[in-house]
């Protein structure tokens, strides 16, 4: 066997292994980084992000950051129900019936509202149908000391619900994307922590 063919063979093997690894990675992390296009390019950064005042040309302070709307203003149910729920259009219209009517996307929102049509948002964090995830138990579960198992995030003096643990810093995202692999391994990484004392029974999620 010549050295050249040896190298070719070695290259084939290495490429094969890499391909396998890449495929394996792709399959295991199909959800991570998923950032679908939405019917309205709602910016969480603008709406939920921290305010940032800057002077405009006229020297007036203008908020170029976000409006700091808390998550649960729109996603109302995480502490009470299984779903965190998407806001109905009416929630958007609380402000946007008067605000931002010079913006194209707000007008599109208003069109939906006027037609009485719901907005067909594309699910970003989309678990398979056979997974029964309950937001409320994750947010309200307490450890032996009576503290929430998922810690409250303290940021800029504000106590934020621990949404970030799974969803990442949505308030800094222009377009929401999936920050974690959201596969079973990732769920179990937390459930298996001794201090979580969470169930690793199959029926905890599958039934």
């Amino acid at each position, binding site marked *: 066997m010549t050295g050249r063919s040896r190298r070719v063979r070695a290259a084939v093997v290495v490429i094969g292994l890499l391909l396998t690894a890449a495929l394996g990675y792709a*399959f295991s992390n199909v959800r991570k980084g*998923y950032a679908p296009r939405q019917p309205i390019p709602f910016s969480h950064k603008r709406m939920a992000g921290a305010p940032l005042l800057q002077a405009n040309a006229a020297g007036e302070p203008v908020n170029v950051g976000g409006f700091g709307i808390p998550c649960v203003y729109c996603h109302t149910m995480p502490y009470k*129900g*299984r779903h965190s729920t998407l806001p109905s259009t009416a929630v958007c219209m609380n402000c946007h019936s008067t605000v931002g009517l010079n913006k194209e*996307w707000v007008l599109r929102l208003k069109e939906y509202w006027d037609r009485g049509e719901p907005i067909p*948002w594309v699910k970003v964090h989309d678990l398979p149908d056979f997974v029964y995830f309950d937001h409320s138990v994750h947010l309200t579960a307490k450890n032996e000391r009576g503290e929430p198992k998922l810690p409250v995030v303290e940021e800029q003096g504000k106590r934020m619900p621990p949404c970030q643990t799974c969803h990442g810093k949505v308030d800094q995202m222009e377009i929401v994307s999936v920050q974690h692999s959201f596969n079973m391994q990732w769920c179990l990484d937390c459930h298996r922590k001794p201090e979580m004392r969470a*169930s690793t*029974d199959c*029926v905890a999620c599958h039934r």
Partner: protein
Amino acid sequence: MNAHEPTTAPDEVRMERREFLRLSSAAAAAAALAGTACQVPPETAVPFSDMPENLVDGMGRARYFHTVLDGTPVLVRTREGRPILVAPRDQETSGRGLTVRHQAALMDLYDPDRATGPLALRRRPDTATPLSWNAVSVDVVARLRSSGARAVLLTGPVPGPAVAAAIAALRDRCGLRHVTWTPIAADAAVAAWSQAFGGPEVARPRLAEADVILGLGAEFLDDPSGGLDRDFASRRSPDGADRPDGRPTMSRFVQIEGRLSLTGANADARIRVRDSHLASVACALAHELVVVRGLGPLAGDAAAAQALAPFTIAAVAAATGVPGDALEGLAAELQRAAGRALVLAGGSASSSASGVALEAATLVLNATLGAFDAGLFDDTGATVPDASGVDGLVALADDLRAGAIEMLIVAGANPVYDAPGALPGGSFADALAKAPFIVSLNDRVDETSALADVLAPVSHPFESWSDAALPGGAAAIQQPVIQPLADTRGLLDLLVDWAAAFGDPASAAAVAAAVRPVTPPPAATAERLPSPSLAWHYLRAAWAVRLGADAGTPAFDAAWNQLLRAGSWQPSARDAGPRAVDPKVLALLGAAPPPPTAPAAVELQLYPHLALGDGRHGNNGWLHELPDPVTRITWGGALSIAPRRFDEMGLANGDLVEVDTGHGTLVAPAYRHAGMHHDQVALPLGLGRTGCGPIGANIGQNAFPLRQNANGRLIAAGLPVTLRRVDGHDRLAIGQGSEVLDRESRPLVPATTLTAFEADAAAGTRQVAGGASAWPEHPYPNARWAMAIDLSRCTGCAKCVVGCQAENNIPIVGRHGMLDGRPMAWIRIDRYYDAPPRDGGWDAAVWDGPLEVVEEPQALFEPMLCQHCENAPCETVCPFSATMHSADGLNQQIYNRCVGTRYCANNCPFKVRRFNYWEMSKRQESTFFRWLVPRIAANAELNTRPPMQLKNNPEVTVRSRGVMEKCSFCVQRIRLARAEAIRAGASPDTLPDGAVVPACMEACSTKAITFGDIHAPGSRVAAQASSPRAMRLLESVGVKPAISYLTKVRNDKA
């Protein structure tokens, strides 16, 4: 974009747009990349445009509503506006109970074969064209106006006071004639009670108070709509552990009947007497008690002595073949229990020619035994049974033929299907053809609607407002639990709408209130649209009187809302004074015919199918697929023949036999029915529909035409028939393998007699012990779920089966699926006939139905579901780790991991695992394979047609093909209870007893099923599991089930 908006966007917007485009293209690229890596297709999440205020808390949670269905108050669980379960109310005191038809009502609601809107049928359903409701109403009102008294409204039993009032208003205003037609009526009881007490009200027996119950063909367990099964079971407590007072109490129930009914199968003793002899036997007991033993108020009454004279025990015994000493013993037992004994009739046997005499003799017996004086009958629970005879229908047919009817409105009646075949002058269908104009208000193009000109489909009760009368003058509101799925209207809405057109003030007020615009109506709809809440306004006005407050006042609103939350309204208690039997009732005894002279004659009993009843819900797959608790036949019925006669005729189950009543014949598959009287055969009613839709069409035979019209009564029992074997075979889809169990060889059902039980509380639970385990046990530090099933309380009614089917999204497999041996039900009621072991041999097991066992069978019912064994054999053998034990003792089955080796099903000693042999939840489209494998299309028709999917419980995964499934102990309810505990800040591992109620336990009206955590404080299931009556099956195999069966104790103390 509006014209006055700036056409050039400000910088900021353009920046945003550029940013967005950049990011969205990146996102698209990412999505495409992810797509190549098998990303599931994007799913949309559609929120409300404007969420209704009351749903803010309700997303993803079940909401419960009280309503009423077929005269029984029910609790309906809904999710996101869809009813997904029908359950009994917590403490049902209305004197009504659920039947399997209530449990299965979802399948009627989501029946894809209901009409989706008004149709112009013109008696040619194949060329039907849609109509608008406006056109229908205009047409009907115009015709009502012109026809006057020549218009007829033919209804089934009137469901409630509001509908009755609306019909009355219509009748009064336009002269409409109202005819009711009840296919299966309790006319004999009404006749006897009217004669005895001067009124048609039939008091409700207090089974819970009676120590001895004698059933004369009684069928109160076959039809539990009267709620008598609860009362009966409350007295089946040999150890008293489940009673508040803790005192053991066992009633004794003796049944005399010709066909082994579910009621008879639960009797402590049973005497076989053919239907036409029942009245004689009842009279013989009356003779013995009144004349011979001089008991009761009629003792010494000359008229009584004369009326009862022919019925000496000796004479009756000679004529009927019943052993005289058995009757004497029974009479003595009744005498001993006088004041504590009840005699019940009212079953199918009461529809025999001598049925009135039977009911009368029953009254005489009850009076003699002092049942009325002792308060064993409850007038606060009295009902007026539906008893409209056949006369109204006969007169209607005559008028139709005579051309005296211009317009016929049919609402909730289907006489073309269920009228007797031999009306004077021809069949009812022929008479209908003479009617110039027929409007059908039935919900589909059924047998009668097919002959109509217009079909104006009414909504399902779950879709419309109405009310219903309950026993004892109580009433309940029927409130809709879902918007109409199609363009249908409630019956009350229609009647009020039409009555308003004729100026009925109450109706007109309702219409006025309904059309008062709340919001401006859309301009596009020009026609007058009565609001769907028309009936609501009418009902509120009507109920304002009953609730004693003016409609529209806040007090009324509060009372009304309270009523909706409670579900029913109870009048102030009426005085239930003792009744005195009018001796005039003795005259009815004379109607008892002399015992037939030809002893070889065979007589036919037509009995309502246990699941399907009178066949109204003929397209309900759950009801068809429910095995009859006694015969275990699904998807059809059979001619029940006594075992000895069956063997003499050389038949096998399914061989075709022709029944000839003299004026009608019917060919049906034969069935070897244990416990039948030798000279009696029986056929179920309610089958053989042709117009109900493809699910139930042509399943079984329609036996209604065999009934005979005799003096206004429909005779459905004691019909003399001749049997003839004909060529052919029609396989019976029997949902059980062998039916005889020799408990000595196979100790699978704990059962004993009261005598033995009192001597030894563990009697009947003996089995071979298992060996020691090689392994240590797994610890269960927290909750450990378990179940106890009290076989003494279980009547085998099978409501748990349907409740489970609804809760757990279990598909229907159809007749072909049952014949293939692939049932899907997670819980089944095994019915065995108890057999003594055979002598000798190394295999003495008895299983093949020997005559000595099945002629006088002792039935045992055993609900069989996943036993959640501690050492589950199924778990060990699954290579994919798709089934294993949870930390709280559940045998988990994970569908998304299951690959379908079916090894677990093989290795399950209880055979409770169910495999999805077909795709049941999705339609498969390939034309070629649908042709090649016709069952693909058949299964799709049974399970996948919209809107059937709406019945699915979102808490339970819908299984795909190739996946094993089984009872999960309703793990979804356990997990919801745990989630509730976590939200409330409590520990999910220590739920209080009773926090979790699985669907079967919820459906069980006799409280035979107890479920809970055996580690919970005060756990009822732990107490039951440690009772000496408890038996865990197959101890010798060492599987250690989590389900304990409590001994069935048969009261043998005469």
